[in-house]
């Protein structure tokens, strides 16, 4: 199957799912319930799925588990909140949404490159530690800097631009934009990993020395991969900031950083779609655990569910569905999982 054909088919399938799910919700539930699901579960899953996608991209194709992706998303969110007209309090202000979003994305790419450059010599647990240190350092910096980031309170009232006369945060408008962005980025990742750059990246993951001997610049490839992941995380950060009507240090703190890792791991690091599966599972349980189980102890339920998923399927929900599929078809275990 050629690359173009794969992308076309995946794109159509993704578009179909993203359109059919809301339709199914409208058929199955009363209107306000369906809107709640679309606006608060699906949209949230897509936003955090995008940020998780940046982590999954790095982990799956480069072998880099970076904990700094929430920080990069936060940098985009903060640049948007600081520059856009109407945010409270005014830090820089005065820019319209298109310009502010552009600057936010640029900042996230630069931040991604910077993280990549700082972490370029580390791997595995050391990479995890250095990116964790960056994330916590940035969180503390933002929290204690009043003049630039308004400290603990954060910056509020980032409502998003009006789209064709409708409010950005209208559930259907927001869902459409979030799902469009998610689909484009997802296809972008699928495309990228089949380009020479993506193949070299996977080569670096498997054997950096050999790739280096073949004449590739390993350092440059790594840094660029972090820059691309920064762009993906930045898109998610911009959407998350508009979704939350603003940004505060709590949105990018240690808790948020760990949640992102949980989403990626629960979904499965084998394929980019795992990011979205994981964030959907996370959004559903985070919202409804308190209704399903004792309200004082619902965090135990969330923890237990994630533990069970990871225990019975080390490669997350994706691996689980793959295993189930194999079991149903009665196929023998294949030699290696598809990359």
């Amino acid at each position, binding site marked *: *199957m050629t690359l173009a054909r*794969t992308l076309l*088919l*995946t794109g159509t*399938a*993704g578009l179909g*799912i993203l359109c*059919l*799910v809301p339709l*199914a*919700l409208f058929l*199955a*539930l*009363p209107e*306000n*319930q369906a*809107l*709640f*699901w679309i*606006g*608060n579960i699906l949209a*949230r899953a897509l936003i955090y799925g995008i940020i998780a996608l940046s982590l999954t991209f790095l982990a799956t194709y480069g072998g880099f588990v970076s904990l700094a992706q929430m920080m990069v998303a936060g940098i985009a969110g903060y640049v948007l909140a600081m520059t856009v007209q109407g945010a409270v309090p005014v830090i820089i202000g005065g820019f319209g949404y298109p310009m502010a979003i552009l600057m936010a994305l640029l900042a996230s790419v630069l931040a991604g490159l910077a993280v990549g450059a700082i972490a370029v010599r580390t791997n595995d647990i050391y990479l995890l530690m250095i990116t964790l240190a960056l994330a916590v350092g940035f969180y*503390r910096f933002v*929290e*204690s800097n*009043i003049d630039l980031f308004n*400290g*603990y*309170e*954060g910056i*509020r*009232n980032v409502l998003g631009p009006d789209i064709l006369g409708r409010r950005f945060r209208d559930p259907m408008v927001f869902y459409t934009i979030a799902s469009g962005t998610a689909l484009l980025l997802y296809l972008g990742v699928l495309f990228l990993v089949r380009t020479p750059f993506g193949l070299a990246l996977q080569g670096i993951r498997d054997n950096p020395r050999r790739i280096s001997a073949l004449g590739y610049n390993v350092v440059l490839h790594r840094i660029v991969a972090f820059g691309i992941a920064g762009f993906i995380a930045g898109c998610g950060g911009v959407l998350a900031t508009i979704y*939350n*009507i*603003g940004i*505060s240090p*709590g*949105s990018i703190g240690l*808790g948020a950083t760990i949640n992102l890792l949980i989403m990626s791991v629960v979904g499965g690091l084998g394929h980019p*779609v795992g990011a*979205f*599966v994981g964030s*959907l*599972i996370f959004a*559903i349980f985070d*919202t*409804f655990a*308190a*209704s*399903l189980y004792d*309200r*004082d102890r*619902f*965090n135990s339920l969330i923890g237990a569910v994630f533990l069970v998923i990871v225990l019975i399927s080390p490669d997350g929900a*994706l691996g689980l*569905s*793959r295993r*189930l*599929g194999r079991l149903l078809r009665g196929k023998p275990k294949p030699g290696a999982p*598809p990359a």
Partner: protein
Amino acid sequence: MFRGLMTRSTAALLAVTASAALAAPTLAQQGGTIRIGSIKTLEGPFATGGQDAVRALTMAFEEVNFTVAGKKIEWVRESSNAQADVALARARKLIEQDQVDIIIGPLSGAEGMALRDYSRTLTGKTIVNGQSAAADTTLRDVSPNFFRFNGDGMQWIAGLGTYAYQKMNARHVALVGGDYAFPYAQVFGFMQEFCKLGGKVTKLWSPLGTTDFASTIASIPKNADTVLVIHGGTDALAFLTQYAQAGGQQPLIAGPVTVDQVVMSARGPHRRLLNNLISAGPIVDDSDDPTWKAFVASYKKRFPDGFAAPSINAVHYYIAAKAVIMALEQVKGDLSNNQQAFQAALAKLEVPTPMGGKVRLDDNRQAIASNFIRRVVDRNGQLFTTQVERFDNVTQTFGMPRAEFLALGSPSRDNPSCPPQ
């Protein structure tokens, strides 16, 4: 590749629909039910306060046996972690998914601002604040659907500036506080009184969550005659411990959240500083008021594992729940017509408080409440606060016309300012 994706997507789709069916509440709303949602912090830094809020709400609802005006109260409990975006997600879930009529909450300042903004986008729903105390929530950009029956950070410190100047002869106060809006509001309230009388103030800010106060303690001016501590929770504990260890000799006074059971029940060198400490705040643990005695007795009977005395969180959530119940009784449980009658009743309400006073609302639906000057006393090794002075009818604007008060500007780290020469 394509088929693999389809299987996965089908699985995801199935999961979505299955959980949709699972989670959809019983939609057949009985005519005789009123749904009340609550948001408090059962996670994060204020989790113990959130627990106490649950105790207070349980008490308030059990007192009326979960019925008001012949209708059943259905209570949907939600928890946040003191972060604005989490509180917002929970409020949306309560309103849109659980379809509650009224929300009681949230607990902390940034959450309060977020829910105030959210309440403005709603029609026919009411949010009654739990205990969040940022001043601007009901001072600037107010929302018609947001009611607050507790004072804000400024009101909670009312009287302390005057007391420090007149009774303790303080002329130059060095204040230490967390670098964010809630302490700013308290400092604003203190300085309103203290600077007007002619006092001078040196401010020493440190970020929320500071553990090492050595540099702050070293910067306290030698000629300051009193130190005002505005920190809360673990920050307060860290500051007081280190101040005691550094041999600090200047007398201390404290803000409303510095002297609470978190600090008073902890062991350590700071206890030497706590005895006889003067502070301001909206509740007094060891009040002689009979209403308070009865409230404490029923709290301890219902929750033997609770605190030694109900906390500030319990008192404020209790008042909020009482207000909701009283207003519902007045309108006979009628929430029709976008809750207009109910909201009008809430706005005119006079709610008796466990402290033996009454609280009512101003035009911005903000409480006019009592405040106290308190002294810490040691009762058999357990520390409590006792009442020194009581101020009734403290308004959000300290008795000034609102326009004049607003012209003073928002509280910030530099506003107001009256440094020593």
